């Protein structure tokens, strides 16, 4: 086992070059010299980012470092204070119809007697006025449910399903409009370890098989690490962007988090991040939201 560990440096500016492959495909998300402000305070600045079509990207970093803020910028909910941004070649927000968005995990009360399949269908036609036309979109709903392997329990009441089963159906709900980009805020939050691994694998499969660009905020990189094409690490008001091997080094992570962090390489060449401050994952997002 090869252990690399470096002391935190004083260098504030963290910039990791984009991989050479960038540019061969149309950028799905693109930021340059970007600064985001919330209540007049800069959350992060000088962020340069380019995400290609069909890539699987994780947005990581300590609490309050601006992970959810980036999602809000890309969804067009928060204008940049400086710099430029585009999503699918247009202004953020203009491409909303082609983005499937999964907000932070919602809780379904055990007493809610609505079937999973109806919840998925609402993703397709829930925002439309007037009487529903049942026949429309039935195939699309079935496909989305098959895609996340939830056919077995899709007709049971959503409140009686496990956290992992609910999360799969919510992913199907986000996928039912056939989006080009899937944006997820903490999809692994409050899932147990087997479900974190399973949902990570599911998202990777959707990304590769369906060609959907997947962009997610996560707290713990480890369940995702083997699937990621790119990581965006926020910390100390800056972002480090690149492939996992470029960014996930002891030096970079220690600098971003401000505490010593070790990156281990297992015998089969996989990375493992150790020494992250024990963050209660189920609280993380709420802190960020409150700041906003």
């Amino acid at each position, binding site marked *: 086992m090869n252990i690399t560990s470096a002391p935190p440096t004083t260098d504030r500016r963290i910039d990791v070059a984009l991989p050479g492959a960038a540019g061969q495909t149309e950028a799905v998300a693109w930021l340059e010299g970007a600064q985001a402000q919330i209540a007049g305070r800069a959350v992060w600045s000088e962020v340069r980012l380019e995400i290609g079509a069909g890539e699987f990207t994780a947005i990581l970093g300590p609490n309050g470092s601006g992970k959810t803020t980036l999602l809000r910028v890309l969804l067009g909910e928060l204008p940049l204070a400086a710099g430029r941004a585009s999503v699918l070649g247009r202004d953020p927000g203009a491409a909303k119809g082609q983005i499937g968005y999964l907000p932070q995990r919602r809780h379904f009360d055990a007493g809610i007697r609505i079937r999973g399949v*109806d919840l998925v269908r609402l993703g397709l036609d*829930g925002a439309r006025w007037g009487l*529903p036309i049942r026949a429309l979109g039935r195939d699309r709903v079935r496909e989305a449910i098959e895609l996340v392997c939830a056919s077995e329990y899709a007709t049971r009441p959503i409140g009686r399903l496990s956290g992992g089963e609910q999360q799969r159906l919510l992913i199907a709900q986000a996928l039912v409009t056939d989006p080009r980009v899937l944006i997820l805020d903490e999809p692994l939050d409050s899932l147990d370890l087997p479900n974190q691994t399973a949902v990570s694998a599911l998202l990777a499969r959707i990304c590769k098989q369906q060609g959907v660009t997947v962009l997610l905020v996560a707290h713990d990189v480890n369940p995702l690490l083997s699937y990621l094409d790119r990581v965006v690490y926020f910390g100390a008001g800056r972002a480090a962007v690149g492939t996992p091997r470029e960014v996930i080094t002891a030096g970079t992570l220690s600098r971003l988090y401000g505490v010593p962090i070790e990156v281990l390489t297992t015998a089969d060449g996989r990375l493992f991040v150790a020494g992250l401050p024990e963050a209660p994952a189920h609280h993380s997002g709420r802190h960020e939201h409150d700041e906003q």
Partner: protein
Amino acid sequence: MSSSALPLAGLSLDPVSDFQQLTAFPFMVNALEAGTAVAIMAGVVGWFMVLRRESFAGHTLSLMAFPGATGALLIGLPAAAGYFVFCGASALVIGLGSSGVRRHRGEESALTGVVQALGLACGFVFLSLYQGVLAGYENLLFGDFLGITRGQVLTLAIVAVLALCGFALVGRPLLFASVDETVARARGVPVRGLALAFLLVLGLAVAATAQITGVLLVFALLVAPAATAQQITCRIGASLVLSVILGVAITWAGLALAYFYSEPVGFYITTVAFTIYVIARVTRAVIDHSTLLRRRPEIAEAHA
């Protein structure tokens, strides 16, 4: 007020003769028609109310019919006018005062509680200001079906049709906002506006229902059919239809029992509704438990 004074043969358990007796008098035909209109509307409105977990707001709005009725009597208006004004105004106050965000539901229930207390206090003040003896105010509280006029039937039918048209128009976004508020908002559903609109319709439905069941027992017709239907099936369409059917059946049973026996109609409606709900709830619990037992071996296998 008791129907025992009428020349009746009594309940004979022969459906044809019972139905003939039931519809022998125009006042009873009025009551059945008004009850049907109210039950259909209450079935749909109540279904959404149960789904949205807004039973407390519904309960408060139903109590607002009490100050509404006594206030109207005080200034010489028909009680129905007071019902609609007070229930509608309270729905507006509760709707505008609450933030419309799920995680702030606590504040909303506090506000609802304050509105409820104030409304009840107003009701009793109006009652004491009303110098004469308020004839039959038990009827106000527990329901009266003898004095329903053609005009009332027409008003209730119009209110019911308007409410149903409203639901046909906003039903889906309202459903989306009710079960999955965050995503609905992200998809551009006006969650806040729908919440307010729903409370207003709920206020109207309550005001209409109170005229049949009485102020204190509105709730039976709003909650029980919807909650029972949701226990029986989790299919949206089937559950809505069942809620309406149960509401109409409970109302007819209640009116018929009140016609043949002497207790107030509200008592019978509540008793029938409660019985059906308990049966559905117990059956659901038994079915869920046995399904869980049947599925457990599969789960154990999948993890092995």
